């Protein structure tokens, strides 16, 4: 037996046309590859200079995480893990076909348990092979041209009378390896699933910048907003596929004979949803004054960060309407887009004696990472409203008197606040709470150094 040439086992005779497709069997392979073969790769219908396969690969990441490009015409997707999510191989192929049609590419598509098998079958537009057992039979019927081996190899095989893959498989292994080459034998083994086919998935360049050039100069905001919307939609699509988020966006408006206008947007927290990104940008655009008509619109999203997934409540607390509420960050962003970062802020509290330094405007870190201030052991009675800075009463000479102030305020002990000698903001003040004749309660103080009176707050 040892002397006999070792033949590859082959179950020939089964025509691919009669092969039932979509049959699930307990012996289904652990991998299922979908191959796309472009019929005419010379035509490059995409506007960018990117190869159509690369652009397609970027889209295919929406279907699976393992995508390979097989030069010159093939794209391979391992979809076994995605079948359940999308509802079967037919649904996955349909999605992919829809995208290919959208790009106006003519293609053939086929699914098989190994990458080479899928690719070769796709090149010849054969039916899907879902079971490893029938793989050899289907491959055997393929002509040699499906392998895209070099012409001299194909010529050599043709001279030997080999017309199909099946003929190759019928040749003695060692003779095939010696005369044609071990790599081709290895490929055949890989196609049949006898040898592992390890593939490196392609890494799509993080093209988080986009550009739209207009056929004519644009002067209307509505047209710019539409262009912005489309560019942000493709960005969001990209981010979702790669599970990334962005925080900084920069929109570049290119003009014909002027330096470009930049519009930067910093989000409160990284986001990837279309509305979170586009709403603030469009609100900003509406208020932007552009110096000249725009000929091109660019978008730069900087370096994306990994997506932070948040636990959402199963029964979202959307009020009676049942609508999904806008996230707290999105609210701030939409308000800030209109009023600026200065107009929308939170309140912070510090452990400090000087009344004007106790509170601070918080414009950053409104949502997370704020150290919760330890509660005061006893918060003294303070007015609800504080003036931005103390207002001198009648030029500082005013002293609350019986005509204006109702109660016997002088009998109250003043609250002496004396602090800040160490940082130059030294104060020495006597604070009184006084009630005016019309019922307003005010927080006034007398500066102990200058003896002038100031109004500092109003009780609610």
């Amino acid at each position, binding site marked *: 037996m040892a002397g006999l040439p070792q033949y590859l086992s082959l179950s020939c005779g089964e025509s691919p046309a009669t092969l039932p497709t979509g049959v699930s069997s307990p012996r289904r392979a652990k991998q299922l590859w979908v191959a796309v073969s472009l019929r005419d790769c010379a035509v490059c219908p995409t506007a960018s200079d990117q190869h159509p396969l690369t652009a397609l690969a970027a889209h295919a990441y929406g279907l699976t995480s393992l995508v390979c490009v097989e030069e010159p015409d093939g794209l391979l997707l391992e979809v076994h893990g995605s079948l359940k999510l999308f509802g079967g191989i037919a649904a996955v192929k349909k999605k992919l076909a829809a995208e290919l049609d959208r790009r106006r590419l003519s293609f053939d598509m086929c699914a098989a348990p190994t990458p080479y098998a899928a690719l070769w079958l796709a090149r010849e537009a054969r039916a899907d092979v879902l079971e490893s057992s029938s793989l050899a039979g289907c491959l055997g019927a393929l002509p040699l041209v499906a392998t895209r081996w070099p012409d001299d190899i194909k010529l050599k095989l043709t001279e030997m009378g080999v017309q199909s893959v099946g003929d190759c498989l019928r040749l003695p292994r060692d003779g095939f390896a010696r005369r044609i080459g071990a790599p081709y034998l290895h490929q055949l083994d890989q196609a049949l699933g006898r040898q592992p086919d390890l593939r490196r998935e392609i890494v799509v360049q993080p093209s988080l910048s986009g550009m739209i050039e207009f056929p004519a100069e644009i002067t209307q905001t509505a047209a710019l907003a539409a262009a912005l919307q489309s560019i942000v939609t493709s960005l969001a699509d990209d981010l979702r596929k790669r599970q990334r988020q962005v925080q900084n966006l920069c929109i570049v408006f290119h003009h014909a004979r002027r330096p470009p206008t930049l519009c930067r947007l910093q989000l409160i927290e990284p986001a990837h949803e279309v509305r979170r990104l586009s709403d603030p940008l469009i609100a900003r655009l509406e208020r932007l004054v552009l110096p000249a008509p725009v000929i091109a619109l660019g978008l730069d999203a900087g370096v994306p960060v990994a997506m932070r997934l948040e636990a959402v409540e199963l029964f979202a607390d959307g009020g009676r309407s049942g609508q999904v509420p806008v996230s707290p960050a999105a609210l701030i962003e939409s308000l800030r887009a209109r009023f600026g970062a200065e107009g929308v802020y939170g*309140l912070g509290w510090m452990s400090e004696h000087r009344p004007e330094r*106790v509170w601070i405007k918080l414009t950053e870190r409104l949502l997370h990472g704020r150290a*919760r201030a330890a509660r005061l052991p006893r*918060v003294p009675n303070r007015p609800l409203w504080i003036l931005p800075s103390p207002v001198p009463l009648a030029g500082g000479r005013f002293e609350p008197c019986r005509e204006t102030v*109702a109660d016997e305020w002088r009998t109250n002990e003043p609250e002496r606040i004396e602090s800040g000698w160490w940082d130059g903001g030294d104060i020495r003040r006597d604070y009184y709470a006084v009630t005016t004749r019309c019922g307003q309660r005010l927080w006034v103080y007398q500066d102990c150094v200058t003896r002038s009176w100031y109004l500092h707050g109003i009780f609610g």
Partner: protein
Amino acid sequence: MPALALLCRNSRAKRWIVWVAPPFVPYAPALLRHGIDLDRVLMVHPTSTKKDALWAVEQVLRSGSSIAVLAWLKDASDTVLRRLQLAAEEHDCWAVLFRPVEALQQSSPAALRVKLKGTVGKARVEIVKCRGKRPGIVDLKL
């Protein structure tokens, strides 16, 4: 104030208490004293026009991510107020609008309208309108 503190305590998810165009800045220690969670307080100062303030209130109400809105509005038409009211009811948000006294002449769809007048030692609360109840006057001792 106690009502706001109660809202702070009762809602689990982080929802804002938004102050739109207040006349002054609320003083943080006073808010703390009343038990209001400062992390939820969000101040909004609309830039110029009165439409901005109304827009801000409506945004806040419609977002569904705030629990209360306190807004100081100069003037607002009946229809706008009705719109705000519907948005507030739809998204479970407590909306309080502070309006000038002259606005009392105007009709309003609000569920409760109150006129406050302070005198020495007491405050007069005039309930101008209350859905399903009679108007009345209450004096509060301070």
